[in-house]
């Protein structure tokens, strides 16, 4: 497991056309990695994420995505993702295919992927219109009771990208706090990239901690603040004001493009991004 710069990690491991899952349920969202994908101009990505957040709004608005697998696409506590809406409603900057689920369905699909099963069964989607619009929602019959259950195909991303609190020098990664479906998305992936707040000699001992083992981790990039404006429990809190500001920035194509140019395209890396927002190294 090598420790790479984020630029090298994305260059080496994320290709045009890949299926990419950047998970994090409000917490530990890999913003820095998403920005680097935008800087490197990846195209035609199949993006997967339970809750497309601002970072997916940005990727979609910048034309990186061909397809989106998701279950809830909003700005949490604020409202719409305007770039996602513009893509779906108006095909701008181009058409976006949707593979739409519920949270329970996405969770089951990640779990199946992590276990290398081809599908997950669950009691879901009953009497909703979702299956009529998604051929990836089917049914399976219990071979014991005859009951019919919903079935979703496993998600096995080409690359899963996470942000976590810590990695050790061997490449073991530990996460604390709200962990969403990150562990399952990680274990389901063909490659796993992780940005971390800190790299330590040894993870703090914690017998039943949530750890991603080094031989499952493809590369680690040391990227402090890499979840900002989302948060990293124990390091910094969520910049709720930024999430609120994003509503105005993203509402119009012009203000969105200008912001992306100034803060992502014209910055070299995550430190540059933070600097462009008025942060100065202490």
């Amino acid at each position, binding site marked *: 497991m090598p420790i790479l710069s984020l630029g090298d990690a994305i260059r080496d491991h994320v290709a045009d056309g890949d299926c990419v899952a950047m998970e994090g349920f409000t917490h530990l969202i890999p913003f820095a990695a998403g920005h680097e994908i935008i800087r490197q101009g990846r195209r035609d990505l199949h993006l997967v994420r339970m809750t497309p957040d601002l970072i997916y709004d940005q990727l979609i608005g910048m034309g990186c995505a061909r397809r989106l697998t998701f279950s*809830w696409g909003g700005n949490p506590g604020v409202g719409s*993702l305007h770039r996602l809406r513009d893509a779906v409603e108006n095909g701008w900057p181009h058409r976006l295919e949707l593979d739409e689920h519920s949270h329970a369905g996405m969770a089951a699909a990640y779990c199946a992927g992590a276990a290398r099963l081809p599908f997950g069964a669950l009691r879901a989607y009953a*009497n909703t219109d979702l299956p009529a619009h998604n051929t990836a929602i089917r049914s399976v019959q219990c071979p014991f009771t005859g009951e019919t259950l919903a079935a979703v195909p496993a998600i096995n991303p080409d690359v899963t990208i996470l942000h976590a609190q810590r990695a050790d020098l061997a490449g073991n990664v530990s996460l604390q706090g709200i*962990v969403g479906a990150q562990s399952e998305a990680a274990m389901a992936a063909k490659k796993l990239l992780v940005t971390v707040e800190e790299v330590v000699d040894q993870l703090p001992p914690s017998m039943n901690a949530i750890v991603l083992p080094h031989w499952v981790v493809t590369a680690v990039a040391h990227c402090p*603040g890499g979840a900002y404006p989302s948060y990293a429990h124990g390091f910094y809190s969520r910049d709720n004001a930024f*999430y609120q500001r994003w509503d105005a920035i993203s509402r119009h194509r012009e203000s969105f493009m200008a912001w992306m140019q100034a803060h992502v395209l014209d910055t070299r890396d995550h430190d540059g991004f933070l600097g462009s927002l*008025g942060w100065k190294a*202490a």
Partner: protein
Amino acid sequence: MTGASRDECMTIAAARMLRDGCVCFVGIGLPSAACNLARLLHAPNIVLIYESGTIGTRPNVLPLSIGDGELAETASYVVPLPEIFSHYLQAGRVDVGFLGAAQIDRFGNLNSTVVGPYEHPSTRLPGAGGAPEIATHARQTFVMLKASPRSFVAQLDFRTCAGFLDGHGARARSGAPGGGPGAVITDFGILRPHPDSQELQLAALFEDATQAEAIAAVGWHLQVSPQVERIAAPTQVELNTLRALHARTREAHLRPVQLPGWVHA
């Protein structure tokens, strides 16, 4: 007359419905305020579950997002999200689920997916999230949603969550494990399902709301219960507690973020 806003009336009405000790699956916004208000008032042992995986949460301020750090810090414990849906919700271990939506119909079915046709929507909404399975599995659901003919509609553009389907026992016949919408708390008062038809009918009005207002706000021909209750005005204690919670929340969310190794210019 306490000068309560309709948002406050909705929140307090919802809080009053929660019995102590019940297990609630909470959403962001009014439901989160209602559940925490109940916890601070008459239901200190209510168990709040947020779909981000926090269980037994006792936040001091309301979260802006479903996964705020405050929720994890004040939780009894935090589990991976798949467990929330499989071991808790699907397993039938949730008493009350809160739901919102963009549209509701007369049988409590909900739309939070699209306005217009799915393939070419005029408005793309955020989508289902955890709602379809909350609607299916929670022992009962409470819907919180402000009323207008655009939100309380005769015909949904998309059914994201099952309420009572076409009513008249259709939900029970479909085998849905949960009981469906027990109440719709809106800004004029409360709708409840008719015992036989399950059609939502006006069951209660806020102190200063009228039946005419309710009928005008609903996009279908609203049935009215023979006995429409008058909802007691918020007490001073309820209102003070709710307002203090909101004040604490506003203050906390204004606190600037500290990013280790950086200062903000």
